[in-house]
């Protein structure tokens, strides 16, 4: 049924062309009828409003994802620090030389470098740029990644030139009774 305008005007109200069966205005209709309008103008409004609702639901899902990370972080078990392990004897490594080892067992290759008569440093051998193996350049007090010409400081493991942005993870070493022991691994610092 098409309502006529007040005053007998024959122009149609295209926003409310359809009249509900009971003849009451749309605002007095049950929710299901208001949510599924027939007229285009009202339908445009309802569908746009429902889209906003859906986007807010997406927003809630993204927030839930953030809190899932928080919970995962809170309840994740930190691995126990590995026990110390012998990795070399002092005599097998002349000053300026290096050897590779794994610590803890099954880790990525590590690099032990003798930097002085009684000083050793050890780092993860994988470059923090694209995992190429780094090689020691003891004379320059640096570690070099030949793939993309990255350079790290030998004493701290921090990047000093080239594409790497993060420091090499450091392996803590200790010298006791002529043996070099790995005693822990420090997280990489930028």
């Amino acid at each position, binding site marked *: 049924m098409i309502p006529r305008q007040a005053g007998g005007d024959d122009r149609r*109200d295209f*926003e*409310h062309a359809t009249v509900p069966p009971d003849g009451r205005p749309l605002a007095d209709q049950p929710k299901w009828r*208001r949510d599924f309008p027939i007229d285009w*103008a*009202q339908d*445009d*409004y309802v569908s*746009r*409003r429902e*889209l*906003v*609702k859906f*986007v*807010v639901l*997406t*927003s*809630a899902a*993204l*927030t839930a*994802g*953030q*809190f899932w*990370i*928080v919970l*995962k*972080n809170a309840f994740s078990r930190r691995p126990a620090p590995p026990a110390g392990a012998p990795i070399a004897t002092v005599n097998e490594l002349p000053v300026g030389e290096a050897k590779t080892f794994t610590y803890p067992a099954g880790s990525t290759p590590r690099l032990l470098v003798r930097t002085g008569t009684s000083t050793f440093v050890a780092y993860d051998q994988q470059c923090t740029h694209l995992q190429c193996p780094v090689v020691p350049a003891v004379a320059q007090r640096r570690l070099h990644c030949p793939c993309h010409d990255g350079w790290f400081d030998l004493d701290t493991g921090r990047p000093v030139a080239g594409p790497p942005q993060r420091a090499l993870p450091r392996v803590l070493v200790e010298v006791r009774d002529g043996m070099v022991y790995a005693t822990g691994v420090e*997280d*990489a610092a930028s």
Partner: protein
Amino acid sequence: MTSRSRMVRAQRMTIVNAMLAFVTLIVILQLWLLTATMNAYLGGDTSTVVPAALASLVCLGLNAGLLRYLFGLD
């Protein structure tokens, strides 16, 4: 229907469009926040996890407030 109510409908349509733009912008921000946090977390940096979650919660609050206002128009 009178022309006044038609104008109100047009206004409501403008408002709902503006809301949609705001809410979409905020959701894009949240999506970026989630990917950046996940990237940092998987890289071993856990310091950003809680601040990012709080920022996302604030964004959700903003969105919920806008939606509440929108439903208040009806």
